[in-house]
């Protein structure tokens, strides 16, 4: 009970922090819009490639952008933690009876909340520019849940690496190193059957691809719930591992204080 309450306090603190930076909010919202419209226009004729199943590239791309945005925004989660450590805010929490788990859980939960809000906006925009999601509300909800899972996972990983590196520049480098390859080694922009075979094999192990494939299936006309459940299961397992990693990293930080 205390753990839930403390996690909630921390989540609200982080969301308020985000809300207080209107420019940051604007940029994180404009970015996916640009992805959607720019790539939507750039790759418009992808649907003409033989073997592409579907009639609208925007409709195909939108779940991909939802997932990609989830990763992009939550991968920076550790930055705020490093700042808290440097400012002594974390140490202040550690001398108080706050539940330790809440200090990490609050950040992960915040990422999940942000991902759902961003996803709502992207889906709404995609609908405006002519995409359709035959999977209906249930399918879109599943897409959001999968994105939130991925966002939480990257939030946990980012906090874990942040705690190990303890340096904002190092974390920036690591995030930049990792997010683009993960995006392009997936079916985000092209259907799986159209990307090179070796990439398909790599993509099988890419959590971003799990989320894209499952999310896209969920909003399609004939969702493959077996596949969605399997990929969601992978993501849950990875989230559990990432949280365990972040928790261990936090414990080692505590020992180093």
């Amino acid at each position, binding site marked *: 009970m205390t753990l839930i*309450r*403390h996690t909630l*306090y921390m989540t609200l*603190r982080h969301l*308020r*922090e985000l809300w*207080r930076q209107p420019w940051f909010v604007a940029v994180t919202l404009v970015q996916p819009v640009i992805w959607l419209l720019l790539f939507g226009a750039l790759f418009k004729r992808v649907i003409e490639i033989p073997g592409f199943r579907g009639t609208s590239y925007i409709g195909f791309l939108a779940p991909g952008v939802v997932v990609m945005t989830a990763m992009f925004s939550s991968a920076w989660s550790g930055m705020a933690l490093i700042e*808290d450590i440097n*400012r*002594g*805010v974390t*140490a*202040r*929490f*550690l*001398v*108080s*009876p*706050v539940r330790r788990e809440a200090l990490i859980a609050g950040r992960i939960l915040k990422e999940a909340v942000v991902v759902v809000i961003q996803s709502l906006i992207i889906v709404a925009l995609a609908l405006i520019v002519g995409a359709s999601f035959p999977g209906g509300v249930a399918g879109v909800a599943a897409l959001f849940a999968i994105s939130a899972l991925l966002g939480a996972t990257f939030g946990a990983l980012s906090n874990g690496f942040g705690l190990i590196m303890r340096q904002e520049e190092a974390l920036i480098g690591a995030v930049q190193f990792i997010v683009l390859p993960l995006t392009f080694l997936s079916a985000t922009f092209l259907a799986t059957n159209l990307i090179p075979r070796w990439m398909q094999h790599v993509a099988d192990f890419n959590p971003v691809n799990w989320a894209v494939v499952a999310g896209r299936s969920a909003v399609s006309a004939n969702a493959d719930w077996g596949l969605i459940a399997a990929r969601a299961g992978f993501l849950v397992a990875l989230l559990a591992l990432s949280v365990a990693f972040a928790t261990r990293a936090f414990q080692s930080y*505590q*020992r180093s*204080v």
Partner: protein
Amino acid sequence: MNTAIEADGLVKSYPKGVTALDGLSFAVATGTVFALLGPNGAGKSTAVKILTTLAKPDAGAASVAGIDVIASPDRVRRTIGVVSQGSAVDIQATGRENLRLQGQIHGIRGRAIEERAEELLERFGLADHADRIARGYSGGMQRRLDIAMALVHDPAVLFLDEPTIGLDPEVRADMWAEIGRLAAERGKTVLLTTHYLEEADQLAERIAIVDRGKVVAQGTPDDLKRELRGDAIHVDLEREYNGTVSRTLTAVPAIRDVSIDGRTLRARADDGGRAVPLVLQALESAGVEVSSVRVARPSLDDVYLKYTGRTFDAAEAEEATR
């Protein structure tokens, strides 16, 4: 004596082979202000980290309000308020939000926390800025907010780690007044660390002088000064001389504890006023040029010199280059 804080033989070394604490022991009576005085790097902050459950000692025992720090850290955390070195406020939140979160963590909720926050904002002169983001606060205001946050749950024991470091002299004086008021609150125990001699002298009822991870002397400021019989004589020389100068003075009767540090000669005498002419005479006959002479009642600096064999400034410089 009711003991609020007890440290017994604390040892702590850090991975790079630095020994921060080397058997540190002291006890603080309930309801008093106690200062750990020493240069930067003496181990004061490490001691505070252990007592406030942030770090674990390699050896030794410690308790706060009768609770074992190592066995029951969570119970200790409910009992203490901590103001760490440097500000630790959330600069992206308002003063009120900082206080509210701190209170909520301590289980104060609803109307109770709103009232408590208001009360503390008033008391620390932050009421007019309560709903401003703390990023815009001055250093002094952030420091006051730090202290207010540490007091939210009305802790029995308060730790202040270098509370006035980095503050303007003016703000520092305000801070001293505030700490004095805290100490006057019934039953509150305050442990203060400082490397300002006058801060310890002014605020603390008892002082422990810490040097290289150990307590080298402790007592009331007056006790400590009284142990140095007589007055301190400081002679500033025109230029640096070698060690033979101090030997010149050793020959003078009524003078003892002669030491030289750069261009400053220090000595002690039971009656400083009478000893000065003798000192000057001896120096003149040895051909030593004197620029000024001062006679002073013993200061904590002298106490420090006596117990550690180096002046406070020299110790600071040494720690800084380590």
